[in-house]
């Protein structure tokens, strides 16, 4: 069983599955999720693969299901998601599923078309009803107007629109035709204008608005329409008017002339509308019932169909053997999972009722296996941030277990406030305690998901920040005095001057504050001076320690991969170089802390200048802070510098020349050379059908040993390391910079914002304080927690990726992506949203 320190040992396996059992076996393997299949038909078009028909059928089924889902969503029916995981159904069940979906889809389509037709008729009838009503109004007006001017003995029924006037004028009955219809309200003005222009003002338009908006059957929107009636004389005008109505998409309706006919038609229309309403209601009810029944199962069906599709995609990667009875495939899996896989295969074979057992064969291969790190919910976050930079090469040391602690720790050194750390830790704790409920909600807010997936990281960062906050003695920019300060005030003989600098000789108790920075520094004016020196030195100490740790991890790598040459030619000079310069510096820092106190503080040696002088071999004696720190310093420092300088050619030259000598002295093998292949491979060999093994040391017998390449590679490595060791040490000073920025921001926020809230006394002050606190809290969370938190996170990440991992990490592997239904279903459900 592997652990997180190194990725799992993987092996290439060959699977022989009988054709009948293949489906069930792949289904079992999909549930297990421990196997990564390789594509044995890479040059086959996806349309020519064996199971392309089945995949096509699955696609059809999925399309039907999506259509159903859309309809269900349109009606707003909740889809039941029990969260159960149905197994992939057998191939023969696929036909049943297809039939069900087909039936549902057809039914739904039929219902939809019917509903559309009904709605169209309903619309027409409604428009007709409005027309009849409104034209009634026009006629009433005409009648009123008519009654004013003519004798009332005229029967109402026989009043035509124009009445007597039509008969009177010119002695001939003016035969006016009319058309009545309905048009969109927006189009009415341009409709009127067009009519006027085309017919040269010889038509007469009356219009009235329909108050209620009508539903457009095609789009389902509500539109406002108007009733109009156009009067004209003659056939030509009639055809023109009709054409214009067509152009403006106005619907024309036959409107009877006499009021009696209109009344009859009105009644008829009303009855028809009633009937239509009933039918429409029944149709929507039926549709709703069908959808509700489907909604119960639709999630289940989706899962089943996706599983079937996944299985057939995988089966497409398989190879059919010569006898056409057996499917062969190759897969990567972890060595310690082989038993589980065997059991899954046995289960699959049993389920399919086949008698021939499936065979799992281990194969040897020179190919680089994928990198598989078994993680649980806690370690997954940290493994992800390591993998984000580069997936570990196969079987090299995995930085993740150390990152679990060092990453939150370096974050905390940069964040360093116990109050803010407490808030962060509580946030992380809430997410961790409620993780089941929160992960069931399946939000698709990216930012929330990022925070939620990193909940353990946030919890750890917050906890370490509380600790470093107590060390820096910084709680919301205030200090805590738990143990009693080690500094006291001088005896008061008279009034104090405006500022006093306490003298360590008399006002210092002799022993430091037991835990963390003394609280007196928070109220001191020269706090930054003191903290700068402290934080810079701590940054360098932590940085050099982490780098030494990184180089030591490279030793573990060299020993594991059995490269003793690398140990001698890379690890030893690297560690000597690092220790001679920066290890020595760290020792000097500790020594300076111990040896100098206030009595000789003016002569406390300047470490930076001493380091520079070490390299230029200059040892001044004049200003006492530049003179030697201990006896024999000149000699020791000279040795160290020479040692460090010797390491450079050691790193540069020794390894290429030894490799060259090894190549020249190698025993001449009789292995068949393949001059056509050409390039040096590190192990990437085209392998035959699994069983042939290529000789070891093949990589160098390919084309000859390219000395130039190796030398340049080594030179780059050396330069990178030597220059990097200096620049990375300086880069660790960001630990100081960010913690200074955070402390200062916090202090500014307090003095400029919160302190003002305490100025006003009694109850008005209370209200003001209430408001100012809100402002202060908002800025604390927004600026100090979120912005500074993200910033410190980023810089801690960079320190790990570049400064730490460049000392040992290869990072050229590729991830193990097993065939797992879980991942496929999750991916599909995120795409759905």
């Amino acid at each position, binding site marked *: *069983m592997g*652990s997180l320190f190194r990725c799992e040992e993987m092996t290439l396996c060959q699977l022989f599955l009988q054709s009948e059992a293949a489906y069930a076996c792949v289904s079992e393997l999909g549930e297990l999720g421990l196997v990564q299949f390789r594509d044995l038909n890479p040059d086959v078009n996806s349309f020519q693969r064996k199971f392309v028909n089945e995949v096509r059928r699955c696609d059809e089924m999925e399309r039907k299901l999506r259509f159903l889902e859309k309809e269900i969503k349109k009606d707003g029916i909740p889809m039941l998601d029990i969260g159960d995981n149905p197994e992939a159904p057998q191939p023969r069940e696929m036909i049943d599923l297809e039939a069900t979906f087909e039936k549902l889809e057809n039914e739904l389509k039929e219902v939809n078309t019917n509903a559309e037709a009904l709605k169209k008729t309903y619309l027409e009838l409604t428009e007709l009803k409005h027309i009849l009503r409104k034209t009634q109004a026009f006629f009433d007006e005409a009648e009123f107007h008519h009654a004013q001017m003519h004798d009332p003995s005229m029967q109402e029924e026989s009043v035509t629109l124009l009445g007597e006037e039509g008969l009177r004028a010119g002695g001939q009955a003016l035969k006016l035709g009319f058309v009545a219809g309905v048009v969109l309200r927006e189009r009415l003005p341009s409709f009127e204008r067009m009519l006027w222009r085309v017919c040269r003002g010889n038509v007469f338009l009356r219009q009235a608005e329909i108050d209620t908006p009508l539903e457009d059957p095609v789009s389902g929107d509500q539109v406002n329409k108007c009733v109009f009636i156009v009067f004209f004389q003659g056939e030509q005008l009639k055809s023109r008017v009709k054409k214009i109505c067509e152009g403006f998409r106005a619907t024309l309706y036959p409107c009877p002339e006499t009021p009696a006919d209109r009344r009859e038609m009105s009644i008829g229309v009303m009855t028809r509308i009633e009937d239509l309403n009933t039918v429409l209601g029944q149709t929507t009810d039926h549709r709703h019932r069908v959808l509700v029944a489907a909604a119960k199962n639709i999630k289940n069906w989706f899962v089943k169909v996706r599983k079937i599709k996944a299985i057939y995609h995988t089966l497409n990667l398989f190879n059919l053997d010569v006898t056409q009875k057996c499917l062969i495939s190759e897969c990567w899996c972890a060595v310690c999972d082989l038993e589980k896989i065997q059991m899954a295969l046995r289960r699959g074979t049993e389920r399919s009722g086949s008698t021939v057992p499936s065979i799992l064969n281990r194969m040897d291969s020179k190919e680089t296996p994928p990198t598989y790190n078994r993680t*649980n919910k806690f*370690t997954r976050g940290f493994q992800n941030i390591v993998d984000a930079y580069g997936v570990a090469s196969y079987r090299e040391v995995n930085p993740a*277990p*150390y990152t*679990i*602690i*060092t990453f939150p*720790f370096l974050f905390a050194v940069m964040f360093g406030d116990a109050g803010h750390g407490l808030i962060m830790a509580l946030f992380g704790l809430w997410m961790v305690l409620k993780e089941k409920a929160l992960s069931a909600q399946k939000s698709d807010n990216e930012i929330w998901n990022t925070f939620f997936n990193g909940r353990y990281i946030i919890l750890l960062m917050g906890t370490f920040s509380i*600790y*470093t906050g107590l*060390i820096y003695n910084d709680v919301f920019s205030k200090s805590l005095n738990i143990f*009693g*300060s*080690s*500094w*006291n*005030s001088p005896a*008061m003989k008279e*009034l*104090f*001057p*405006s*500022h*006093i*600098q*306490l*003298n*360590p000789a008399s*006002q*210092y108790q*002799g*022993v*430091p504050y*037991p835990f*963390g920075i*003394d609280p*007196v*520094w928070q*109220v*001191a*004016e*020269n*706090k930054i*001076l*003191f903290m700068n020196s*402290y934080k810079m*030195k*701590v940054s360098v*100490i*932590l940085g050099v*320690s982490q780098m030494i740790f990184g180089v030591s991890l490279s030793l573990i790598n060299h020993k594991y991969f059995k490269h003793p040459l690398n140990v001698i030619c890379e690890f030893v000079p690297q560690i000597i170089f690092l220790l001679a310069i920066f290890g020595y510096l760290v020792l000097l820092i500790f020594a300076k*802390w*111990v*040896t*100098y*106190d*206030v009595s000789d*503080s003016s002569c406390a040696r300047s470490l930076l200048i001493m380091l520079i002088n070490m390299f230029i071999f200059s040892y001044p004696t004049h200003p006492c802070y530049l003179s030697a720190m201990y006896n024999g310093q000149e000699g020791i420092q000279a040795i160290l510098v020479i040692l460090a300088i010797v390491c450079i050619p050691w790193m540069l030259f020794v390894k290429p020349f030894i490799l060259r000598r090894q190549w020249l002295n190698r025993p001449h093998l009789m292995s068949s050379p393949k001059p056509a292949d050409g390039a040096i491979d590190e192990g990437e060999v085209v392998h035959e059908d699994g069983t042939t093994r290529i000789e070891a040391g093949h990589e160098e017998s390919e084309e000859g040993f390219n000395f130039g390449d190796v030398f340049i590679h080594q030179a780059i490595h050396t330069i990178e390391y030597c220059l990097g060791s200096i620049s990375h040490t300086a880069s660790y000073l960001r630990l100081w910079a960010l913690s200074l920025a955070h402390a200062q921001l916090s202090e500014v926020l307090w003095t400029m914002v919160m302190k003002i809230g305490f100025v006003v006394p009694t109850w008005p002050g209370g209200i003001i304080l209430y408001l100012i606190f809100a402002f202060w809290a908002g800025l604390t969370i927004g600026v100090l927690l979120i912005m500074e938190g993200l910033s410190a996170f980023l810089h801690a990440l960079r320190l790990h990726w570049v400064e730490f991992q460049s000392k040992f990490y290869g990072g050229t592997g590729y991830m193990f992506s097993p065939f797992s239904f879980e991942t496929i279903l999750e991916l599909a459900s995120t795409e759905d949203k």
Partner: protein
Amino acid sequence: MGASAAPVIVITLFWIVIGGVIPWFVPKNENKGIIQTMQFVAIFCVLYIWLCTYMMQMNPLFGPLIDNKTLTMIHASKW
């Protein structure tokens, strides 16, 4: 001036207990190695930074510059 014995002993002992004793009691499940590593690295980091802070304050080269109002309060309440 220098270190006082008490805090050094207390704190070192405290973390050695947590760092040395507790790892023995981690139940032998599959995560034992990781948990032990985590504990060791955590305790090392924690002790390291505490030590640096303590050592730096042992022999201060200069004292805090305090204004007289604050100094009066320090004096009065006998910090």
